[in-house]
C-alpha cells in the first residue's frame, strides 16, 4: 500500500463524489461547485502522473476560467431549482441503474483486460520546456489553428450574447458602420 496508491484513491474518491453530486443536485450552482471540486481533484491526479504543466493549466484554465464563466452565467440568468416532472422521475429511475451498470461494465472490462503493469508516480515528467518544444515543433499547425478557433469563438460569443437592437432600423445601422 504505497503512498502513491493512497493518494490516487483519495483524489479518485473526491472526483467520483463530485461527479455524483453534480448529478444529484437540483440547483445548478451546486452542480457547478461540485464540478470545480472534480477538476481540482483531477489536477491532483495529473500531478501524480507527472504531468505538472497540464495540472497547472487545468486549475488555471478549466477551474479558474471556464467554471468561473459557468458560475457567472448561472448568476446572470438567475437559474432556479429544477422542477420535478414525471419525465425527470422516470429518468432517475432508469438512469441511475443504467449508469451504475455502465460503470460496472467499464470497470470490469478495464480491469480484466488491460495490463496490470503499474505506472510509476511521476513516470513521465511533463515539464513546460519539453512540452513547449513539442508544441512548437511537431504540433505547430494545430496550435495555430486553435488560435484561430479561439478568435472565432470570441467573436461568436460576443455576437450571440449581445443585446438585440431595440428597433430593427438601429440594428441595420449598426451593421452598416
Amino acid at each position, binding site marked *: 500500500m504505497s503512498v502513491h*496508491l493512497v493518494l490516487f484513491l483519495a483524489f479518485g474518491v473526491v472526483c467520483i463524489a463530485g461527479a455524483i453530486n*453534480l448529478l444529484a443536485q437540483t440547483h445548478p450552482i451546486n452542480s457547478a461547485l461540485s464540478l470545480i471540486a472534480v477538476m481540482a481533484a483531477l489536477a491532483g491526479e495529473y500531478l501524480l*502522473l507527472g504531468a505538472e504543466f497540464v495540472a497547472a493549466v487545468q486549475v488555471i484554465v478549466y477551474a479558474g476560467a471556464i467554471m468561473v464563466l459557468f458560475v457567472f452565467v448561472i448568476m446572470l440568468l438567475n437559474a432556479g431549482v429544477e*422542477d420535478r416532472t414525471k419525465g425527470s422521475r422516470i429518468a432517475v429511475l432508469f438512469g441511475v441503474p443504467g449508469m451504475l451498470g455502465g460503470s460496472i461494465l467499464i470497470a470490469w472490462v478495464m480491469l480484466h483486460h488491460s495490463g*496490470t503493469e503499474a505506472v510509476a508516480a511521476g*513516470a513521465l515528467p511533463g515539464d513546460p520546456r519539453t512540452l513547449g518544444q513539442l508544441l512548437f515543433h511537431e504540433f505547430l499547425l494545430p496550435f495555430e489553428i486553435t488560435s484561430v478557433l479561439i478568435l472565432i469563438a470570441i467573436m*461568436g460569443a460576443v455576437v450571440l450574447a449581445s443585446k438585440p437592437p431595440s428597433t430593427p432600423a438601429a440594428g441595420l445601422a449598426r451593421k452598416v458602420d
Partner: protein
Amino acid sequence: MVPLSYYLVLSGILFACGVAGFLIKRNIITIFMSIELMLNGVNLSFVAFAAHWHALAGQIFVFFVMVVAAAEAAVGLAIIIAVYRTRETLNVDQVNLLKL
C-alpha cells in the same frame, strides 16, 4: 504503484457520470457541465496513456482538448443566454419550437 487500469476505470466512471447527467438533467447549464465532465474524464485517460507509453503527445492532446472545451463553453453559454432572452426558461424541454 498504481496500475494503468485503475486510471482508466476512474476515467470511465467520470465519463459515465457525464453521459448520465447529459441525459437526465433538464437544465441546459447543467447539461453543459456534464459535457465538461465527460471531457475531463477523457483528459485523464489521455494523460494516463501518455505516462504509460512515455509519449508526451498525450499531454499535448490534453492541451488542445482544453482549448476546444473553452471555446465551446464560451460559445455555448452565449447561445444559452440568447435562448434565455427569447424563451425566458432554462428548461431544455421547453426549447422545442421544432416540435411538430
